[in-house]
């Protein structure tokens, strides 16, 4: 029995109309499949359209061509099977940490009296049990990410879409958050599509690492399987010999794209 495909992008093309009427093609012919229970990381240089691809999988953006299939059904509108963890702060600033987590259930019609204790449990499992009454501005960046993670996971989505979620955090906090994510993911192994520009983070977390070329019209140019044993510890997996070999191999491809990406962005800056 083959595992079902959670997310399938088939020849997806994403284009935007610019202010001056020209068409900007962000992503060209992206072909990507994420199996159920699989953790896939997308890595690419700045501006390569990796977040764009994630928004297509979420249904926030419509592809200009090609199709998106979620559990073998074409995606129409928003992806109701997916939870989305944003790069920027997305918590509701007027709700306490507890209410921010509980809202995920309340939207579905769960009575508040039932939602609150479950939200409290989730806060505890992301290590913030004592911070239930705090408002987002009273929490640190890392704590806010934990609340956001609980807010998404309490709905028990089948697919988890993550857009450089730990990007704004400092290096140590990122590793701690990575381990927390792996622990939570290990419990029920949802399909994960994780966008990052950090190759080390990608290898340490994922089952597969997908590399995108520099934009515009970026494509998927590489797909590596990471067979490091699970459960992993982010701190220790980086010392592994296999980790280093894989890192060297992927980096040799990624390096050229990163340089191209920089060249293009400086070029674009000069043009402006």
């Amino acid at each position, binding site marked *: 029995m083959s595992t079902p495909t959670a997310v399938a992008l088939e020849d997806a093309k994403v284009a935007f109309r610019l202010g001056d009427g020209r068409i900007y093609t962000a992503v060209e012919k992206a072909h990507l499949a994420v199996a159920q229970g699989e953790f896939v990381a997308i890595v690419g240089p700045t501006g390569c359209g990796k977040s764009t691809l994630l928004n297509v999988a979420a249904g926030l953006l419509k592809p200009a061509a090609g199709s998106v299939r979620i559990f073998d059904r074409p995606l129409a509108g*928003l992806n109701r099977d997916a939870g989305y963890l944003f790069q*920027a702060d997305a*918590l*509701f600033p*007027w709700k306490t940490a507890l209410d921010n987590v509980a*809202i995920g259930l309340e939207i579905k019609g769960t009575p508040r009296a039932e939602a609150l204790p479950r939200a409290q449990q989730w806060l505890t499992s992301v290590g913030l049990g004592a911070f239930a009454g705090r408002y*987002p*501005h009273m929490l640190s960046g890392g704590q806010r990410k934990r609340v956001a993670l609980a807010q998404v996971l309490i*709905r028990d989505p089948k697919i988890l879409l993550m857009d450089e979620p730990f990007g704004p955090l400092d290096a140590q906090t990122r590793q701690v958050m990575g381990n927390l994510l792996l622990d939570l993911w290990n419990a029920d192994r949802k399909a994960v599509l994780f966008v990052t520009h950090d190759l080390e983070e990608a290898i340490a977390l994922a089952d597969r690492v997908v590399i995108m070329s520099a934009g515009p019209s970026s494509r998927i140019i590489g797909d590596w399987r990471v067979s490091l044993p699970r459960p992993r510890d982010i701190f220790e997996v980086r010392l592994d010999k296999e980790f280093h070999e894989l890192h060297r191999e992927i980096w040799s491809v990624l390096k050229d794209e990163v340089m191209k990406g920089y060249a293009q962005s400086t070029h674009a800056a000069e043009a402006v």
Partner: protein
Amino acid sequence: MSRPTLFALQVLVAVVCIVLWQVLSTVPVFGKILLPPFFFSNPFDVFSQIVKWFASGVIWKHLGITLAESILAFVIGSLGGVLVGFWFARQPLVAAVFDPYVKMVNALPRVVLAPIFALWLGLGIWSKVALGVTLVFFIVFFNVYQGVKEVSRTVLDNGRMLGMSERQLMQHVYWPSALSWMFSSLHTSVGFAVVGAVVGEYLGSAAGLGYLIQQAEGVFDVAGVFAGMFVLSAFVILIDFGVTLVERRLLVWRPTASDGRG
């Protein structure tokens, strides 16, 4: 600076001003009184006038009327501002069509509307309420309009991805955002509600603090004018204090300026 020291200095300013006033209006300097009592009265007379008002109980009726007018103006103006602000922000076409008219009405000095309202609504409280409403409405309207339009894109997307319907987005995202903008202008709009009421009373009425001041002025009772001004100031400070309490309760989730983490 410690709080008691600060308070002492604040009181000192008042004491110095009052003593100067009292001295200059009663003791001749080089044979001449610098603040003629006819134009400046003196603190003692003003104070006795205030005491007389409170002792006889006359003032309560006027205070009550002004307070009622202010509250009505604030409530009606805010309600209208919130509803119209919401409507305009959610319907860009409507906003675009009405834009020049909104700007036109808002540019109008509200005092010129007072005679019209007096004609339409009579000399009772409603002409004053109407004047206050025209002031409060625009402040609240502009703030709510801005608040709804400037909801963070990410927060909105997050709401959608969490499965919120349009109605739920309204309840959990647009509404709190708009309210927070409205509350941030609470001091201004409450202040303007009082201004509307008092100016309306001053221009034509039978009761209220503005009426009291206007009556005193009519008989050249300068002590009465000053007494009315002091009662009015105290009244506004009290209301402002109340607003601060309400605000602190409602906007706990907002970072304050001194907060390190934004």
